[in-house]
C-alpha cells in the first residue's frame, strides 16, 4: 500500500538513553520512577515498551521525548543531549525530529483534520510537501475526512489523524503512548498496521508504550520495565511470548 522506499536498512542510532534516573519529590518522601534506565534506538526499528502499572514505562517515554525532565543521566537525540536544553530549544527539537501519538486528546477540537495534520509543520514555519501529504493521507484513508472536526470522527479516525500528523514531519522518532488504549480491536489493528508499514516502508523509528501484548507483537523488539528498571528484552515478539514474559515479571 505504501510505495517502496529507496535504500536499505542501516543500523544507525537515532536515540540513546544512558543511566536515566527520575525522582519525584525530595528527602524521605522521594519516589523513584526511573532508577538508571539505559537503551538505544536505531533507525527503522519498532520498539515496544511494556511493564506493569507503575513500572515507569510512560515516564521513560516522556523523558525520551523531552516532555518530562530527568533527575540525572543523559538522553542524546542525533548528536544533541536534550537533558540540558531550554524549553524553546526542546520544543524546536521535538517538532523537527519527533512525532507523537497519545492515547487520547491528540487533536485540537477547533481545527479540522487537515489543519490538525499540518499544524506541527506550520508551527515550525515549514512549507508543505504536498506529495508526502497526499501519500500519508491516502495511506491512512483520511481523504474523505480532511474537512471534518475531531468531534465528527470516530476514535479510530482520530488516532489515524494523529498518526498522519506525526508522520507528516518525517520525524527521526515517532512516539506512541498507548495509541490503541481507547480503541476497539479492529481500529487498533488498523492503527498498528499503519505504524508497522511506516517502519517497513520508510524506515521510520517508532517507540510505543503499551500494556497490550497484541500491540506489542507488531514491534521488532519489546523492552520490559519493572520498578523503574529494564528487566528484560524480547526480539521478534509474538503474542504468546510477550504474555509469558509479562506473567513472569508480574509474578
Amino acid at each position: 500500500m505504501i510505495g517502496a522506499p529507496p535504500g536499505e536498512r542501516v543500523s544507525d542510532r537515532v536515540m540513546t538513553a544512558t543511566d536515566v534516573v527520575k525522582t519525584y519529590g525530595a528527602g524521605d518522601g522521594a519516589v523513584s520512577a526511573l532508577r538508571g534506565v539505559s537503551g538505544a534506538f536505531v533507525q527503522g526499528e519498532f520498539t515496544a515498551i511494556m511493564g506493569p502499572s507503575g513500572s515507569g514505562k510512560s515516564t521513560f517515554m516522556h523523558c525520551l521525548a523531552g516532555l518530562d525532565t530527568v533527575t540525572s543521566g543523559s538522553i542524546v537525540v542525533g548528536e544533541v543531549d536534550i537533558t540540558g536544553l531550554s524549553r524553546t530549544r526542546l520544543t524546536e527539537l521535538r517538532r523537527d525530529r519527533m512525532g507523537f501519538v497519545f492515547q487520547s486528546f491528540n487533536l485540537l477540537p477547533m481545527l479540522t483534520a487537515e489543519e490538525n495534520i499540518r499544524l506541527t509543520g506550520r508551527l515550525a514555519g515549514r512549507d508543505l510537501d504536498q506529495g508526502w501529504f497526499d501519500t500519508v493521507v491516502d495511506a491512512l484513508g483520511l481523504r474523505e475526512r480532511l474537512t471534518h472536526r475531531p468531534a465528527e470522527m470516530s476514535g479510530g479516525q482520530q488516532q489515524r489523524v494523529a498518526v498522519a500528523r506525526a508522520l507528516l514531519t518525517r520525524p527521526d522518532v515517532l512516539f506512541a503512548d498507548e495509541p490503541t488504549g481507547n480503541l476497539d480491536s479492529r481500529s487498533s489493528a488498523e492503527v498498528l498496521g499503519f505504524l508497522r508499514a511506516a517502519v517497513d516502508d520508510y524506515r521510520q523509528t517508532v517507540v510505543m508504550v503499551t500494556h497490550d501484548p497484541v500491540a506489542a507483537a507488531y514491534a521488532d523488539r519489546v523492552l520490559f520495565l519493572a520498578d523503574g528498571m529494564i528487566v528484560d528484552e524480547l526480539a521478534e515478539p509474538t503474542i504468546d511470548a510477550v504474555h509469558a514474559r509479562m506473567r513472569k515479571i508480574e509474578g
Partner: protein
Amino acid sequence: MANPLWLIARRTFAEGWLRLIATLLAALGSIALIAGSLQFALRAQEAVAGSDASEYARVDVLVQGGTVDPGDPFAPPDGRIRLDQVASRPGVAAAAGDATTAVTASRNDGQAITAAAEGRTLLRPWVSDPGLNPYRLEAGRAPAADGEVAIVRHMSLAGDLSVGDTMTLTLPRQTRQVRIAGIVSVQGRDAVAAGDLVLAPAETAQRAAMLPAGSWQGVWLKAAPGVSADRLRGELARDLGDAATVRTAESVRNAQTTAASGEGASIAGVVGMLASVAIFVGLFVVANTFGTLVRQRTRRLALLGAIGATPRQIGRLIRLEALVLGAVASVGGVAAGFPLAELIIWLFARDGFDVSASAPQVGWIALTVPVVAGLLVTQAAAWRAAHRAGNVSPIEALRSTVTETRERRWPRLLSASAIFVAACFLCAVAVTVRVSDPPGPDRTFAITLMVLFASMLAVTGLAVLTPFFVGPLGGLVGRVGTLVSGETGRLAHATITRSPRRVSSAASSLMLGVALVASLVLVTMSVNDRFREAGREVMAAEHAIASTARTAEGAPAPLGRDVAARATGAPGVSRTTALTQTEVTLVPSTPARAAAEPFRFLVSGAEQTGLRDVLRLGGRPPALREGEIALSSAVMRERGLRRGEVITVRGAQGRTTLTVAGSYHDPSHLFADQALVDSATMDRLDANAATLAVLVRGGSPQALARAVAGVPGVRVLDRDAYVTAASQSLTRALRSTYSFVGMALLLALFGMATTVTMSVVERTREFGLLGAVGATTRQIRSIVRWEAATVVLLGTILGLVIGVGTLALLHVTSGSSFLRPDPPWWLFLALGAGAAVATLATSALPARRAAGVPVLEAAKAE
C-alpha cells in the same frame, strides 16, 4: 491562513465566544466606560468652552467702570461709567450702555432653567443700535416695555418656552414675572460663552443692576470709519485715566475663550480621574477572567506545546486571542460609549451641570482613543495569562485531570511587596503635597488622586496575595461546613484548599466590588454625618427659606431678598435674617504680595442684631458694625492677618476699607465659611449680593409656606433639609463619582460571575464523578455553596480592609474632619450580606447546571 496561531485564535474565539462572552462583556463594559467618560469630557469641554459666541461680536472697544478682575473675564467691573462721558467723543460711531445682573430664570411651574454648562444666567440690556447689536431675532421681536424680555435660544429649548410665554425671573432683590417677546441667537449659537442671556429694555436692566440713571457698568463702542479699535482704545484710556478700564473687545473675547477652555480642561481632569478607575477595573476584571480562561485550557495549550509550539508561540497565541477580544470589545465599547455618555450627561444635568446642548463628538480622538485604550487594556490584562500559558508543561496534556500545580511562594510575595512599596510611595507623595502645598481645592485634589492610585495599587497587591489567604480561611469555612453539613463540608474544604488560585480569582473580583462600595459609602456617610452634625451646631434657626432652583454646583440658587420681609410677618416668627454672599478680592497691602496670585474669598452678610438667634458660629465673633469684618480663623492664619488690622477689598462696587473685628469659624462651611459682615457693609460691597437663604426662628413651616406662597420657586426647609441642600455644592465631586462607581461595581460583579461560572464549568467532570459515586444534587450544590461562602468571606474582609484603609489614609493625609474612618457596625453586616447575595446569585445558576450534568456526559474527556 499562513499563521497557525492566528487560525487557532480565530477559531477559538469563533467557537468559544459563548464561553468568552462574559470576558468580552467585561472588556466591552470597561471600554464603554472609558469611551463614555471621554465622550462626556469632550462634550463638557465643548459645552463649557464651545460657545465661542460673544455678545461683543460687533463691539470694537469696551469701556468698563473702575477696574476689572484680570483673572475673570466674565466678572462685572467694580465701577460706573456715564454713557454721555464716552458716547460723544471723536472716533465713536455708536455707543450702548451695558449692565449685568445674575438672575435665576424658571418656568412658571417652578422648574429652573439651568444655564449651559458652568455658565450663569445674566440679565442685560437689549442693544437697539444695529451697528452694535449682536443678537439676531429668531422669533418674535425686541423687548419694548418693562416686563418684556428676549431670551437666547438655549433657554427657549431648555425651558420649552416660546414667544408669548411668561417666566419667572429671580433678581437679587425681588422675584418677578416677565413675558417673552423674542428669542435670539448670537453668531449662530444658542448661548454665549458667559452662559444664558435675558435681554430686557435698557432701563429695566439698569434698575436691576442698581445703577443710577445715565450710569452703566460698561459702555460698548463702535469706532467711526477709519478709526482703528486700537487707536480708539488708546485715546480713551489716556483720557479716562483710572476711572475706567478700556480694552478692545477682541482682547476680552480672547480672554473669555481662554478662561472657558481652562474650565473645560479642569472638568476633563476630574472625568479623566474617574475614567482611570474604569480602566483599572477593566484591567482587573479582564486579567482575572483571562487567567481563568487560560487555566481552563491547560490541556490544549500543553498539547500544542507537545506537538511543537514553543513557549513564545503559545504566549503569542494568548495575546492574539486577547487582540481579537480587544478589537471586538473596542468596537462594541465605542458604540456603547455613546448611550453611556448620554446617561452620564443626564445624571450630571440632574445635578445642575448641563452639557446636553453639545453635539455628540465623533472626531478621531473620541473614536480612536477608546479603541487604542481597549486594545492596550486587553493586551495588558492578557500579559500575565500569556506568560503563564507559555509556562504550561507539555506533560499536562497527558494528564487525565488538570490540577493546580504547586507554585513557588516567593515570586508572589515579591511582586506583592513591590506593589505595596509603590502604594506607600504614593502615600508619601500625598503627605509631601499636604506639607508643602497651601491648603485649597488643588491640594485636596492632588492628595485624593494620590490616595486613589495608592488604593488601586493596594487592591492589586492584595489580589496577588489572596491565594495565601485561601488556605487558612478555607480551613475555617471547611471546619464550620463539616460541623454543619458533614461530608459535603469536608469535600468543600478539600476543593477549596486544593485550588487556592481558583477561589482567589473569584474572591479578588468581589474584593474590588466591596472595596469600591465600602470606600464610597464610608466617605459619603462620613461627609454627610459631619455636615449634619456641624450644620445642627451652627444653624440655630429652625427654618430656612431657599430657592427650589439649583446652581450649577447643585446648591439652592439665590432667591429674591424681598422674601425676608414676607417671612417676618408670618405668625410666631421671632427672627428672620437674610444670608447674603458675594465674592471679593483682597487688595494686597505690600507690593511683594501684589505679585502673588490674587486672594479671592467669599464674604457672607447677615443682619447682626439677633444673629445668634439664627446662627451660632464658633469662636463667637463680636457683633459687627458697619465697616467691620470678621474672618474665619483659616483665612486669618493663611493671610497672616491680626485683629484690628485694616484691610482693603475689591468687590462689585469698587474698593472698600474694612477693619478686622475678630475671628471665628464655621465648622459646617455652609453659612459663613470665610468672612462675615453686617448687612449694611454688604450693601457697600455689593448691593446686589446673592441671597442664599432666609433663616427663620420661630413660626411653623405651614405659616411660613403661606407667607411666601406668592413667591414662585421658593420652599421652606427644616434645619437638616437645608443643611443637606446647601452642602450639595460641596459634595458635588463626591456625587459625580456615584454613577462611575456604580458602573465599575457592575463590571466587578460581572467579573466575579464570570470566574465563578467558569470555575464550575471547569469541574463538570468532577461533579459528574461525585454524582456517579452517590452524591445527590443537593449535596453537590451544597459544596458549591460552601465554596461561595469562602469567596464571600475572603472578598468582603479584604474589600473592607481596602475601604476603611482608603478613608483612614484620606483622613491622615488630608487632615479633614469630614473624612473620619468611623464606620458603623451595621455597615459591615450590610456589605457582608450584599456580598453574600451577589455571590449566591452569581453561583446559583452554574451550580444548578453542574449538579444536573448527567454522569456519562461528565465522564467524557474534552
